[in-house]
């Protein structure tokens, strides 16, 4: 829990009929943070966003914004603005009118509105489009107008509901960078919702992975990627080798496990397994290194190449580990290394720290 958070979500539960959308969610969001809620559809991420925006009311629990309980406040009273998935630009208003919509209702006078319009349009490079209607803009431009409209009233918290989903893949990468830089320059708190793990990893300061109305894991992109604590997170983010075996014991911080007769050492942060239990560990593909001889530290097994898949800058190599009853591991290596591996068995090595023991 951070000191003086901007948003405190306090034990929120929300059900729709029989379905539980959120179960006892508690979470703090710090000022200036770019936090992403990530998860498959129906995981509760959008419900959280809509509760923050004031479009849904939780069955129980509170939302504290800047020290004030806003749980029962309608959207228009909250110092929170939103970028909608379909942008929801008003089709009968020009870009300028869209931007001034909130400013007028805030009671700003015309001169101040004009100045703010200019400022925000300048900031988002929309200057040339002020008198256009949304129908006359491209997808990327509309997205920026939606952002401008939401930022214009200077909200404490900006909600973004999958705002990149409607853009084509090429544009999306560029807009991701832009969004991140806008967030950095405005020092605003961004609450971003997406089902796209790559998007989440690229932009966020912090990612909250949701599943079935509950938080699976909450951490920085690096933590989530390299040290997932649950099987769900390990599988949802990126590609991984799942290694199941029997827990043997502990050696300091490391957990010792038996994998088809091979002794491996891993790292457990989200769980405390006991000897004799069956455990699963996640090993990222790029953490596997190829060696000509058995490496001196860390885990090592010998494997034989089964298949190579060329992916441009790198190569995915599937290897069968004969000593582990032919179980396969997959590794990402650079293309040259990949080409070089022949049909002879090769040593695979990895740090015990890079293998994360998961909770099921």
């Amino acid at each position, binding site marked *: 829990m951070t000191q003086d958070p901007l948003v405190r979500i306090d034990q929120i539960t929300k059900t729709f009929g029989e379905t539980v959308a959120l179960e006892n969610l508690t979470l703090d969001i710090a000022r200036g943070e770019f936090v992403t809620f990530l998860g498959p559809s129906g995981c509760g991420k959008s419900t959280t966003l809509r509760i923050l925006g004031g479009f849904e*009311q939780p069955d129980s629990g509170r939302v504290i914004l800047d020290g004030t309980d806003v749980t*029962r406040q*309608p959207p*228009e009273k909250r110092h929170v603005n939103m970028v909608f998935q379909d942008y929801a630009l008003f089709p*009968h*208003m*020009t870009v*300028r*009118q869209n931007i*001034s919509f909130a400013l*007028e*209702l*805030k*009671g*700003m*006078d*015309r*001169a101040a*509105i*004009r100045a703010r*319009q200019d400022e925000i349009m300048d900031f988002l490079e929309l200057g040339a489009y*002020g*008198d256009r209607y949304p129908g006359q803009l491209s997808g990327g431009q509309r997205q920026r107008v939606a952002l401008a409209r939401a930022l214009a009233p200077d909200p404490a918290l900006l909600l973004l509901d999958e705002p990149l989903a409607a853009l084509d893949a090429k544009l999306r990468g560029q807009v991701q960078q832009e969004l991140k830089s806008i967030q950095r320059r405005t020092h605003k708190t961004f609450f971003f919702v997406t089902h796209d793990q790559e998007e989440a990893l690229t932009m966020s300061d912090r990612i909250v992975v949701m599943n079935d109305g509950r938080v699976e894991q909450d951490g920085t992109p690096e933590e989530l990627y390299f040290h997932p604590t649950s099987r769900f997170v390990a599988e949802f983010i990126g590609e991984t080798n799942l290694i199941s075996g029997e827990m043997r014991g502990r050696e300091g911080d490391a957990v010792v496990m038996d994998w088809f007769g091979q002794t491996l050492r891993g790292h457990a942060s989200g769980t405390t397994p006991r000897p004799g239990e069956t455990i699963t560990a996640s090993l990222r593909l790029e953490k596997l290194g190829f060696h000509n001889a058995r490496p001196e530290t860390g885990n090592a097994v010998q494997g034989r190449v089964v298949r190579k898949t060329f992916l441009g800058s790198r190569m995915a190599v599937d290897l069968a580990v004969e000593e582990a009853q032919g179980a396969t591991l997959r590794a990402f290596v650079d293309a040259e290394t990949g080409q070089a591996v022949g049909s002879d068995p090769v040593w695979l090595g990895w740090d015990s720290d890079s293998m994360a023991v998961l909770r099921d």
Partner: protein
Amino acid sequence: MSSDASARKDPSGLAGQPGGLTAWGRLVAWGPYRALADFTTASPRRQFVILAAFPILWVLTQHLGPMLQMLRVSLTDAYPVAQGVEQSFTLDNYLRFFGDRIFWMPFFRTLAFAGVFTFCTLILTYPVAYFLARHVSRRNQMLMLLLLLVPFWVGEIVRTYAIMILLGNTGAVNLVLKWLGLIDRPIPFMYTSFSMGVGIVYLTALYMLLPLYSALEKLPKSYNEAAADLGAGAWTRFRRVTLPLTLEGISSGCTLVFLISTGFYATPVLLGGPSTTVFAETIAGFFHVAGDEWPTGAAFATIMFLAALLITGVFQRVMRGLRKGDTG
């Protein structure tokens, strides 16, 4: 309403003035408005109550009210109640209906006419709707449909009058027949069930045509092509594919036309004769002749309404059964 238009004149939305609040800014800053808005939005429940109260009240008092009041009057012995007289409950007004042939004959005649006219309308408009939906290009469809719509904006009375001119003894039809040498003496079309039928079909055709057209238009052409591919002839294709899939349109068109047909008053008066008196004329009689017989009129109207609802209800159920039997 005008914000769309004003947007075009004033793209910045600020009407070019340097200072001061905008109109919307002034409105929401105005104390009484603010109080009203805060009161309304205090809870979602209150907001719903404020939105729903007027419509519910309106529908109950204005839509349901007249029907209930008619029902109530039909069960009393006198209306309006004279001073000092007790109004009492009675079923006499309903019993009166069964007691006299001059009451129930027009009733059954009306239902029979409405049924026959509805069927005629269906037969007449189905090919038209089919042609429009299937054989005309998208662009022309709208124009050709519009061509049919125009006459239907003209009122009931004017169109009834047009039929009178068409079918009169010195009307256009008789003129043409005489000119062709087919007749010596004009055929008396007018004041018969024939002239009434021509008039009522003329008035209701659109209400059949539109549901049929939209049902046919929704039907993918590929269904027919698939049927043809499987070796079905034109008639089989129509009977086994097109007809079953447009039953819904037929059902709603017929229901609408039937209900409308039973309610005509002026058209039967103008186009019909003594042998074609419909129940609408009987009902109207209780409200026009001297002596106030409103309770009886109300009872007869109630009988008519219930009968029409019953018939259309049964009809729709049968059609639904057919639809299920054919598609499921």
